[in-house]
């Protein structure tokens, strides 16, 4: 790896100052499970790594039934997956956070890093999108809030500007009779990158019909893809197999998969249909 300097600030302000200083090229460093691998491959050669793991705001999980869930950007997947309130109220997020790497990667990898790395295959991103998550970002000009659905703009590219730092992810409180689920396909049991993935979220009315729905996909477009039309097609319908198939067909049509070492475009499109249907079934089970 290229030499660099290392700083571990203990406040958001200090981190933003370091990141915004244009005299050097700086990069935030969370778990390093993407960044260090990419730096070894020569993809980046930052002059300064800003370790974000010592900043209290980035190192907390807070749940409140009316405010919802706040996940600091430096919280590891293992920490998140062990959190009782997250397990109870957001099992759809656990689906995604618990499959990012094996036990050792889990203890370093963060959802913040997964989102900021902006891989089309990032497993947590569709789960965050269907749960309606927003990203809280601090920068030289203050703080702003960005829907996760708008965060990734190209492979490896986000809306973050120079000096901006992801502070936390916020997820609205769970609404009654709602449920979410994320599923991916990989050829082995664990420790692999998604060939395709699908997240689904459903909310039911008192009469049992669908009042709101969101579907998002991974690894089938240049960015994680929110298929609004697939969710909208479910609104007002009963949560039946036929309705789920129809939504899955819309998701399939919206996918723009490519062929690569992990799978062909045709296989990916097929998988989108299967995974979307199953994720909807899983989300529906969790509405109960």
């Amino acid at each position: 790896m290229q030499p660099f300097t290392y700083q571990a600030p203990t406040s958001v302000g200090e981190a933003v100052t370091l990141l915004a200083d244009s005299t050097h090229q700086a990069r935030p460093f969370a778990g390093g499970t993407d960044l260090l691998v990419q730096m070894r491959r020569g993809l980046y050669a930052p002059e300064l790594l800003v370790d974000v793991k010592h900043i209290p705001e980035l190192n907390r999980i807070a749940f409140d039934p009316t405010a919802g869930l706040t996940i600091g950007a430096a919280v590891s997947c293992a920490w998140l997956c062990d959190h009782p309130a997250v397990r109870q109220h957001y099992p759809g997020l656990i689906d995604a956070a618990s499959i990012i790497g094996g036990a050792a990667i889990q203890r370093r990898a963060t959802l913040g890093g997964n989102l900021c790395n902006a891989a089309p295959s990032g497993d947590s991103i569709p789960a965050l999108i269907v749960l309606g998550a927003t990203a809280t970002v601090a920068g030289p000009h203050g703080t702003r809030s960005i829907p996760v659905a708008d965060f990734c703009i190209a492979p490896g590219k986000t809306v973050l500007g120079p000096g901006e730092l992801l502070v936390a992810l916020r997820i609205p409180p769970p609404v009654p009779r709602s449920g979410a689920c994320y599923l991916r396909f990989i050829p082995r049991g664990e420790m692999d990158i998604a060939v395709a993935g699908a997240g689904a979220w459903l909310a039911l009315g008192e009469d049992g019909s669908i009042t709101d729905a969101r579907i998002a996909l991974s690894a089938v477009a240049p960015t994680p893809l929110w298929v609004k039309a697939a969710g909208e097609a479910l609104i007002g319908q009963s949560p039946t197999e036929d309705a789920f198939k129809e939504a899955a067909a819309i998701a399939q049509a919206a996918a723009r998969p490519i062929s690569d070492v992990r799978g062909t475009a045709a296989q990916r499109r097929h998988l989108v249909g299967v995974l979307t249907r199953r994720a909807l079934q899983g989300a529906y089970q969790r509405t109960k």
Partner: protein
Amino acid sequence: MTQSKITKQLVSTTINGEPVEFLCEPQQSLLECLRDILGLTGTKEGCNDGNCGACSVLLDGQLVNSCLVLGVEIEGRAVTTVEGLADWRGLHPIQQAFLEAGGFQCGFCTPGILIATKALLDRKPNPSEAEIRAWLSGNLCRCTGYDKIVRAVQAAACHLNTECEVDA
């Protein structure tokens, strides 16, 4: 920024229960620091990108890949490597179980698997076979086919767990 500006940093830490100080450059991984600076060559380098688990160590008791941790990050923290498992009484029960169950062949993956097993059993004294296999999914072994490793972990759990009936 030129390379000459990069200076070595002093790291004060605890390794296998002993206070340790060393100098390293920020781009040196914990794996490099352990092996090349501190001479703790029990921890192995396989892939150097997080996939094989040969470099597994405990950082404040948590399982991590030392190839994806920077040496400078362990300032003020505690690291356990495979060298820290045995004590004056002899091998750690996990090591003993691997020896008796034949949980290794060439042994290259073994330090990482012993450490990963310690992390698992510290967290979950009586894991199911499925839990053992899932936990060890980040530790690759080219030799054993994994079955003997799983049996060794089960035997180690038995040794460490007084309520367990030995059937392994």
